[in-house]
């Protein structure tokens, strides 16, 4: 019997250091197949002897497995970023609520990503790009601290076939010719049909709230703005209590929630 807190061994199939100071790993089960996932879900990745952290799933690898992007921030993410192809890690999951792809069918879709927030949105974007006829106008807004901090640059170029893509940065370099400033400015610049728009938003909490508020100001109903909450998740099962945000266990009732539910919780400081 494998208990629900016991990770399953996964092998690092490939490791790619991103320009954006992150590392993208493809992880495959040491034995058997990995479970299916839905856009927005995450796994708990265990660095043996160091610890375990939640990492969103960015897609399927070419030969199966999970593509997951990690930025070195704490002890565990640093250990995972140092890991080499062929190494073993532990994986539990996938966990959490997904981005509801059915909810945006037939609508114009805005995907707004701040920094590493593009990682959990990548499967959303790929799903939209794979079925352009199923959706209306597709817009991708990306905010990053610096031009080199934009994740998946090569794929962005490919997605441009289906998406109106706008990228803004906080700190431009010499070569940058695009917009500078907050992603909310991009929201203010694009055409929005509020009654037929659905938005998927992921990034730092302050960015998500500002983006969602900007969309609401443009008339998009809060119930059609999905965002991915981040809290301290330790178990992924609603058992450890750490990730609570008001009534939500973020790991099982989230991470993806719509803004009508999230807004009253996020506006209370230190809830």
């Amino acid at each position, binding site marked *: 019997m494998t208990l629900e807190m016991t990770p399953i061994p996964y092998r690092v199939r490939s490791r790619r250091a991103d320009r954006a100071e992150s590392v993208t790993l493809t992880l495959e089960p040491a034995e058997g197949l990995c479970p299916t996932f839905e856009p927005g879900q995450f796994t708990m990745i265990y660095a043996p002897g160091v610890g*375990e952290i939640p990492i969103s799933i960015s897609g399927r690898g070419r030969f199966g497995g999970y593509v997951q992007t990690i930025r070195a921030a704490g002890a565990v993410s640093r250990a995972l970023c140092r890991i080499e192809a062929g190494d073993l890690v532990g994986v539990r999951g996938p966990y959490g609520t997904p981005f509801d792809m059915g909810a945006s069918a037939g609508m114009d879709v805005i995907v707004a990503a701040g920094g590493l927030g593009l990682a959990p949105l990548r499967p959303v974007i790929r799903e939209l790009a794979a079925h352009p006829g199923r959706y209306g106008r597709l817009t991708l807004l990306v905010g990053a601290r610096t031009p080199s901090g934009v994740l998946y640059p090569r794929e962005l170029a490919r997605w441009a076939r289906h998406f109106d893509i706008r990228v803004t940065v906080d700190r431009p370099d010499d070569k940058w010719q695009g917009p500078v400033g907050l992603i909310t400015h991009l929201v203010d610049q694009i055409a929005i049909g509020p009654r037929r728009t659905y938005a998927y938003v992921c990034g730092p909490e302050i960015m998500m709230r500002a983006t969602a508020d900007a969309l609401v100001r443009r008339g998009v109903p809060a119930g059609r703005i999905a965002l991915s909450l981040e*809290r301290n998740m330790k178990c992924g099962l609603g058992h*450890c209590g750490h990730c609570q945000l008001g009534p939500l266990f973020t790991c099982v009732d989230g991470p993806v929630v719509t803004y009508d539910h999230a807004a009253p919780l996020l506006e209370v400081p*230190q809830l």
Partner: protein
Amino acid sequence: MDKQPNPVLLDALDPLITALRIGGFRVVGPTVRDGVIRFAELSSAAESPTGWTDAQEPGRYRLRQEGELVFGYAASPDSAKRYTHPPRTTLFRWDKGPIEPEIDAPPTALIGLRACDLAALAVQDRVLGGSAAYRARRAALFLVAVDCATPSAVCFCTSMGTGPKAEAGFDLALTELSEPHRFLARAGSERGAEILAALPHRASAPADLAAAADVTRTATARMEPRRFELDGVKEQVAAARTSPVWEEIASRCLTCANCTIVCPTCFCTTVEDGTDLSDGAAERVERWDSCFTFGFTELGGEPVRASGAARYRQWLSHKFSTWVDQFGEYGCVGCGRCVTWCPAGIDLVEELERLR
């Protein structure tokens, strides 16, 4: 059980303890240790706190000798939680892959649980029922409840609707009666009935049942001064998120986590990772944690709930408001442990009334 046989009288506890031990259970019950009633493994009723009673008030707990009762005291700092959800447990070891330990769930008979403790177990079942280790430890328990005769000054189970009489969720329940000293015993499960039938017992008389009803009536009356109306509390606490009362409470609260440790429903845990120096294998340990600790909500190096006020708000709001959202019931059973063991003597019943 299909039919409820009449309760029977037991003259002593030792035959029950012996029967449970012969039945393969380690028997755990109350005993006096370090000036406190604690749960410990018992080999005979002589180790029980016969003739001891407690005085509890906010921030204070004292034992004194009085009367002849075996169960003449209110909630102790221990509860069934220690046995269903241990303070520290190894989740797995890892050596190129996981090595799971056997789940440590020895058959255990818990003697002396009160109605509030049974209610807390039912609450825990809903929170942790998804954990195979919890289910195994829970299934290993044989529960001997005791109707509460002597609630303390901090108890409020009648307000929470959980006591003082044990109504369900036990294998056996006892009502301790005086003059002459005896126990009125009833079974709550088939295996409880089997154990009871095999014990030396006498038939009960209507007078015994009346005396038992009197125990519950007296206990209920003792909690009357503290009784409060539960209706509306969920909404009122949720509406008080930005109340200045939290800051005022935080000026007294030490965020020491005592309340969450003694609480029979508080379930939060964290994990610790390490490496076994003898063989180099990694090890992951789960241990109790508390929403009062500073780093509990740490995200990117900073806690979400940095202030003591936010942490107290989380704890009390969870018990009386968001627990209802999550599980359809309150996370408080009215045992009063958090009030007694708060070094600052913060009484959540008083604070609740101020927030409403």
